[in-house]
């Protein structure tokens, strides 16, 4: 059973691994920090947020000051998807942003009885209905969809 935990990360409850929802890359122990399985790049924020007013003339330009702010980009090592972009002071340790209790997660889904890849969506409203199943095994749409239940 795989649980969509973010837009790009699944937790496989059978193997207890973080995996990429796009390409199935294994990021490591689901009880730990998925970032340890990523590639990281220290991005100068001025490359992303360009100045609107002339940096040759002015100190404040709409573009972050690289001496105050860096953007850490976390990539999937296999497909290159940008999983997270964290704004940090230079030299500050990246945040361990999510740590999950896997036993409890399993218990909750066992109690629920549904397939997380089918029932998790973006919230209320028709527009928020989503296919959050793993993209890597959906060559035909939705490998875990109800259409396949009879097979």
């Amino acid at each position, binding site marked *: 059973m795989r*649980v969509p935990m*973010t837009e790009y990360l699944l937790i496989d409850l059978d193997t207890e691994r973080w995996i990429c929802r796009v390409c199935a890359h294994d990021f490591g122990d689901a009880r730990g920090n998925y970032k340890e399985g990523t590639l990281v790049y220290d991005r100068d924020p001025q490359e992303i947020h360009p100045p609107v007013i002339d940096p040759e003339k*002015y100190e404040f330009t709409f573009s972050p*000051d690289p001496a105050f*702010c860096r953007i850490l980009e976390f990539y999937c090592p*296999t497909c290159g998807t940008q*999983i997270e972009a964290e704004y940090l002071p230079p*030299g500050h340790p990246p945040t361990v942003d999510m740590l999950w209790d896997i036993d409890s*997660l399993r218990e909750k889904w066992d109690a629920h009885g549904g397939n997380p890849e089918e029932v998790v969506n973006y*919230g209320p409203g028709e527009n928020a209905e989503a296919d959050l199943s793993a993209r890597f095994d959906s060559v035909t749409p939705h490998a875990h969809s109800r259409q396949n239940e009879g097979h």
Partner: protein
Amino acid sequence: MTLTTDQFVPTSGDDDASQLLTDQEQQWVDKFMDETTLFLGPDPAIMRTHEIMPRTAYEEECIAKGIDPLEVDRIRKRLAGALDEAFEMCESMGAAPGAKWADLSCAVYTAEGDVTYLSNRGVIAFSAVLHHPIRYIMKNWKDEPTVGINPGDGFFHNDSRFGMVHNTDQSMLVPVMRDGIIIAWVGATIHEGENGACEPGGMPSGSESPFDDGLRASPIKIVEKGHLRRDLLTFLQHSTRDPKLMLADIKVKMGATRRIMDTVDRLIDEVGQETFVASLRVTVEDVETEVRRRIGELPDGTVTFNQFVDSTLKENILIKFACKITVKGERMIIDLTGTGPEILNRALNSPLASTKSFMSQAVLSYWWPDLPRSTGALSPIEIITEEHTWADAGYDAPVGQSLQASFRGFSALQSAFAKMQFSSPQKYSNVVAPWFNQINDFLWGGTTQNGEQVGNLCADLNGMGGGAKAFRDGEDAVAPLFCAMADLGEQEVMEEEVPFLQLVSKRLVRDNQGFGKYRGGMGYEMMVASRGTPSWGFMTVTSGSKFSSVPGMFGGYGCPVYPLAMVKDINIYDIIKKDPSQFNLSMERVMNEQPFEGGDYQTGHMGLQFDVAKEGELYMIAQGAGGGYGDVLERDPELVVTDLELDRISAQVATNVYGVVWEADTFVVHEQATIELRAQMRQDRISRGKPYKEFIAEFVQEEPPKDLLYYGSWGQDNNEELLATHWGKIEPERVKGKIEDLPLIMVPDRRVLKISKLEARVRELEQKYGEVAVHKS
């Protein structure tokens, strides 16, 4: 502070039972303390708790007689109708600019002060904090012979140390009484603006002590048995710059609470007092119970979201707002340990209750907006903070611009929730990236064209860009984080009352987006200049000019940063009168082309203390953008070129950030070339990205850069150890320790620092060129 005998804990060796007081002795002590209390300041026992009160004996009695859920629902709907009606009264009759744009709320409370229900529109945080003053009134004034509480009384307060979002807001709290017993309260609160602070407008970024924060009204009985007390009213009017505003809006709030009271009176007549009391109480309890259940639906685990704020509003620093949220079963613990210390001569600190009020705002507007807006929503959530941090400021810290810290309380919860709720099969709100969280807005003050003294703010604070949703772009300039249905106001209407024009209003700024698969809502620029006034000035009161205020979500980017731009020593009105073609104004053109001869073109961070604005001098800022959602390389190329065609993004962003190739003349996407460019960009990521451990070894430092004025924990392994910059001597030094071990943190006057630097340079040059000069001190 209020002292009670309960607070005198026996010291070691003094715990002999023979020393405990008898009941009689305790009564004598209590009586003595009551009669000789020097000062009834904010009471920590009230101010540090946000849980709902235990049932009173009378509530127990009322509930014991039976609850009909349908009847409770009917009562709640009737109250909601009355509250909405009162809200509209305040909105249409209120004199404060904030009132006209929905910056207010109305509420019904239990006898002990728990919010039972709020108006559907308005600011949730306002009423989510007013249980504090009601408890203060109940504890200190109810049985106080010189005050007392009677039918028709109304209490006023504004000081956030007694429970208020910030000191610009003013309340009217009115008891519902039957047979001499208080059975409920009704209230109205409006962001009034002007409050007599050291700068006009009520949110002074220049405040350096609590006495610069303006009016310090603890709860006072301003209305006695239906009559407004003229002596106190005069005192309040005399304490601020806008006496008419004070009078008008106290009367508006009296009218609004009277309207709520009419419905309450009719309801009690119809359903009976006991059913009414029981329904208020069970609503609060039901919300608390439902919140616990919903917490239980979230996955167990810990989500951490740290924020870094780049300004004291006088100088650029970095101060951390740390937040770790842990869910275990039906328990949720929010831990702000690691948050930077209070800065005792800067305005950015927030009282704990104000910080919590914006946590309520996040819970009731972005987590579970379907719940009745009640104190019960935050009540079951445990909150850990350290007193004397900037999110939990002490009594002696200035709090004039407390939104700097309290809004971060909102962002901490709103942003973390996307991760907390993502895997839940049952959601009550959409997955959304961070909302913009600064009031990029002009405050103003001075003498109007009508000869009146005023101080207040523009409605543009309500134009914050929304965060991108997981399935669509965020909305541009949609609503402030604190009020879902606030209004941007009509600038032309405002210009009839205040002596300045918005020469540019609501023009979107190119690239002012949080980029992502879905982008954040954009903000617009504002350009103002005074006209026809003997004295006028502007202020700005936000951070985020060097470090982005909000990040993105799941690979999306955050907002850019925002400058304040000014052109001094010109009169734009003379210029455009002489040459109307110069009315082609935008921040980009004016600042880059510098078209006005003799103008002094300046930028600064967004903490501008009251700046005298001579006629026609230009002041320019931009409203902020919401965070983006998801990987930029997954954004539909058609959406990218649509933004490009509308000049919402630059070609540089379309190419370098979004990886889209298009035909320059027609804006037609080259699909294959885009696929190939994006594939190459993914490969480039893989090539330049470093394995995590290798990256950590290179990037992470033991401490912040030496020249960075930093406050808060560094990393998250030891959040109890805070770093701070201390000016114990002439040069700043970095200090470390637990909050209780740090020295008092203050920042020297930046002009003194600048003068010292210039003096040092003068001496250096004198030495270099052998000039002998006598410097007398």
